[in-house]
């Protein structure tokens, strides 16, 4: 333990990376799954340890890769915020694993199952790399690692439109990554550094004639990252990608990929640029308000009219991203706390919802809303977890979703922005419509012929769903851990603003 503790910040990235390499050697899906299972749980344990350490020290933990000194070498820099996101990504990734075995075996051809797990681990590597590294170009490298593996994961879907969805995501994702690199390039021209903390320090003392390239860099970075987090109207790749990807890939991507992009946005806005030019001098808050509210309503309406349940939840994700970016736009303690805690809460709820749909696909092979008729009786546990998580998405008190919205509403009130509270609550009403549609079909309609023989999936798939559904309730009642860490994270970010 003593020997590995100094290397803790880099381990969560290395474990899945080597897991991916290792699992690529296998031909049988079951062996690759076993490797992935071990790798994800190890990574989760290490990440939680790392988070605990970051919480205990209260200072960023710095790790110099290969022993190269800081502004030149690559630094891994872990504070409460990215420790939290890292623990979130690995824990969700690990919890999905027991579920993945049966679902993947059902949805993906035998000879590519091992590749699925390889890509899953690579995707996780990429996401963790983005989260934990303190180097701007290293972020780009891991962004590409995670993106490329994501395209493959999506393309593995059974539906023939999966390939098109992956292709579209590839095109726009590449444009987004290019914007990111251009932004980094401009920053490098101004500051001569790629280390995030170093850039931040140098921007603070940069001469005023550099303001123009810095603002341009901010523009490129914002648009590039917002594409990755699917901010409206840059969200169009997401519904199809989530709808046609294999169930397990959808669960993992919906719970983690956009969250990491949100983290990256927070890092650039508050830690890197906050010190240099201050967010208020550019119209970012105004733009974010407009697009967040548009996302909350437009995507929710689209979800309410959608007939494919997976696609409906994908639209719901876009709306929920709107809440998160709304908190970023508020840029005060309560708003940011709401945003950060919603990273966790939304990940838990959406993973539960997509897992429930994955279980339906496992039994019925389809996920049109009309196909869910009568499943409340045929698959009672599955649909019960769906309802619990659905209540969370609506924001019913007692569930995790309420906690996030409560802090967002407090943040809006602190700024005196009354109408925002109405926007938050009334967009939740639309969530009530689309979740209510599923509940009504599942519980109050007679099952179709195909659904008659359906029953709950095996325990290996049920247990992760039940665990996350319980977490939805748990984090709705006991908020000491979730809100506590989120508030710490918000404090770290706002500290960078001064």
């Amino acid at each position, binding site marked *: 333990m003593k020997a590995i503790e100094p290397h803790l910040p880099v381990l969560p990235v290395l474990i899945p990376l080597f897991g991916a390499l290792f699992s690529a050697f296998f031909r049988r899906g079951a062996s690759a799954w076993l490797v992935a299972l071990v790798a994800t749980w190890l990574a989760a344990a290490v990440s939680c340890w790392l988070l605990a350490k970051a919480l205990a020290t209260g200072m960023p933990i710095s790790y110099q890769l290969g022993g190269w000194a800081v502004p030149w070498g690559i630094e891994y820099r872990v504070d409460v915020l990215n420790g939290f996101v890292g623990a979130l990504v690995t824990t969700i990734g690990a919890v999905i694993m027991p579920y993945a075995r049966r679902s993947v075996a059902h949805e993906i051809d035998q000879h590519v199952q091992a590749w699925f797990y390889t890509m899953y681990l690579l995707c996780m590597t990429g996401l963790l790399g983005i989260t934990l590294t303190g180097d701007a170009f290293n972020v780009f490298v891991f962004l590409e690692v995670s993106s490329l593996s994501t395209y493959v994961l999506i393309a593995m879907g059974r539906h023939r439109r999966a390939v098109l969805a992956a*292709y*579209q995501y590839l*095109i*726009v994702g590449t*444009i*987004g990554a290019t*914007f990111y690199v251009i932004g980094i390039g401009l920053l490098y021209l101004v500051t001569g550094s790629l280390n995030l903390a170093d850039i931040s320090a140098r921007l603070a003392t940069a001469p005023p004639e550099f303001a123009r390239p810095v*603002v*341009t860099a*901010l*523009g*490129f970075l*914002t*648009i590039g990252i*917002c*594409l990755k987090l699917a901010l409206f*109207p*840059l969200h*169009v*790749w997401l*519904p*199809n990608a989530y709808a046609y990807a294999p169930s397990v890939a959808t669960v993992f991507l919906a719970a983690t990929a956009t969250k990491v992009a949100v983290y990256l946005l927070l890092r650039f806005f508050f830690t890197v640029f906050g010190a240099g030019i201050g967010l208020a001098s*550019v*119209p970012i808050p105004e*733009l974010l308000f407009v697009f967040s509210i548009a996302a909350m309503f*437009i*995507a929710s*309406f*689209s979800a*309410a*009219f*959608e*007939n494919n349940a997976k696609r409906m939840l994908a639209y719901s994700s876009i709306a929920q991203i709107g809440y998160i970016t709304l908190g970023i736009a508020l840029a005060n303690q309560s708003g940011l706390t709401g945003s950060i805690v919603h990273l966790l809460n939304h990940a838990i709820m959406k993973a539960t919802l997509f897992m429930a749909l994955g279980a339906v696909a496992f039994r019925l092979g389809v996920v049109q809303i009309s196909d869910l008729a009568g499943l409340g009786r045929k698959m009672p546990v599955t649909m019960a977890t769906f309802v619990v998580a659905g209540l969370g998405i609506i924001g*019913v*008190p*007692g569930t995790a979703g309420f*906690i996030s919205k*409560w802090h967002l*509403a407090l943040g809006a*009130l602190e700024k005196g922005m*009354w109408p925002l*509270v*109405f926007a938050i*609550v*009334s967009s*939740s*009403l639309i969530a*009530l419509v689309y979740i*209510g549609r599923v509940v*009504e079909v599942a*519980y*109050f*309609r007679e099952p179709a012929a195909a659904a008659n023989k359906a029953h709950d999936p095996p325990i290996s798939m049920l247990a992760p769903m039940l665990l996350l559904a319980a977490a939805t309730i748990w984090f709705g*009642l006991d*908020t000491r851990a979730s*809100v506590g860490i989120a508030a710490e994270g918000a404090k770290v970010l706002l500290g960078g603003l001064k």
Partner: protein
Amino acid sequence: MMTSTFVQPALVLIAGGLLLPLIRGALRSAWLLVIPLIAAYLVAIVPDGTAVTTSFLGQQLTIVKGDNLSRLFAMVFAIATFAGALFALNQRRTSELSAAFVYAGSAIGACFAGDLISLFVFWEAMAIASTIVLWSNGPNARGAGLRYAALHFLGGTILMAGIAGEFAATGSLAFDRMDASTTPRCLILAGFLINAAATPLSAWLPDAYPEASWSGMVFLSAFTTKTAVYVMIRGFPGTEILIWIGLAMVFYGIVYAILENDMRRILAYSIVNQVGFMVVGVGIGTEMALNGASAHAFTHIIYKALLLMSAGSVLYMTGMRKCTDLGGLFRTMPVTTTCGIIGALSISSFPLTSGFVSKSMVIEGAAQEHMKIVWLLLQAASAGVFLHAGIKFPWFVFFQKDSGLRPSEPPWNMRAAMILCSALCIGLGVMPQLLYAQLPFKVDYAPYTTSHIIGQLQLLLFSGLAFFLMLDLLKRTMTITLDVDWLWRRLGWNVLSWFDTMVGRWWAITTRKVSAASLTALARIQQYHGQGGMFGRTWPTGTMAFWMTVMLGAFLILAYI
């Protein structure tokens, strides 16, 4: 985080409801009957003052805070749950009973909530559970359930906005007496009024409740509106506008109930009418009037449950709900008929029934404050109650013509539930002191004075007379001298029906316009957001790239200007 070894009564019912699907066979009936009794016992031992607190989101929440008022409402909710469960033992849809228990538990929880957040949580739980009770009646209830849910969540939203505003303005979440002087407090009151089925949003109640099953409506009638009355007694006593809103509800209920043909819709309109009396009492706000409103809520829940049980029994045995299809059932359903009549007499405040000892307190409250117009309108409305609920319901369902139906009496448990409620109605009418001892304020009121009894009997007699005069068929055989009295009653009737036609026409036009506008809006939303719409379809890759460039351009332009 409990401050004493004390169990929140609401949790017993909620847990009992949630566990119900797991229990089968004979145990199920026992479970259904024992759980409400345990809850009633726990309600009875809730101490005065704060009993259970917890901290949530950095706020101290008072989950249980007892006093006479909250115990009174919680107790009648527990009684109604027991009677309703006894009545509903034959209900095979477990989802309905399960939801009904959660619904009742949430209502009790709301009664003991000492702060606005706990209140809101139970408030929303009631909305969800009651929607499920409605939906359990199968496909016919789907639309009504959706409309019901939409309105109640809208009410919840308004309430939440009010609570957030109140918290922002005062920094306190305590639920105490407030005045409707600030915007947030007006929003809170509006949220309460929506649940009370206040005018002009009364229509959700007669729209939704009659679509519930024969047992579901018994549960639905008891909790939502009365919880709203309770929170208004606690939060907004003496708010003058409530007097006029209450009066509007009273007359709305009468007019529509007189014109209605569906027996359970008659009773639904009459709920609006009766809650109107309570809202008037809250609006007057004196100790007498608040006692009256509380007492009337207590007795109303029981006799309305009784009326709905007798209507439910008829529906259960015949499958019919229209007055024109029914009639003459007294031959084969004597117990149901008798119990229905006892309920009808109670709602009409006949002496020796529970309605007599409670409604008169509200009217006395108006008299003590010398509110002449209010007093007069309430007296007139009492006559109207007898017309629509006291005579019309039993007459058309059980007597009138012989419909040829010969249903037998309902099963034993349904009869037992009706007899229990009848006994409570008469018991409280004969021994009002039992009820008065539980009221929030000290009672200094004797209902049984000679003048009061005679006055009430006259009122009932004449309105009864008017009822039979207006039955075309009976008019020929009735040999009662027609004097001046007839003129104004006839005239009154004409004015009433003219008024109704006007209101009906206006309502029809408004609803047509509103629904046309909302359909257009919905179509517009679907046009853009539906699957073929701009936001719902898959964009070509080039379009996505185009918008990214536009966003970047817009950002840069905005940054430099």
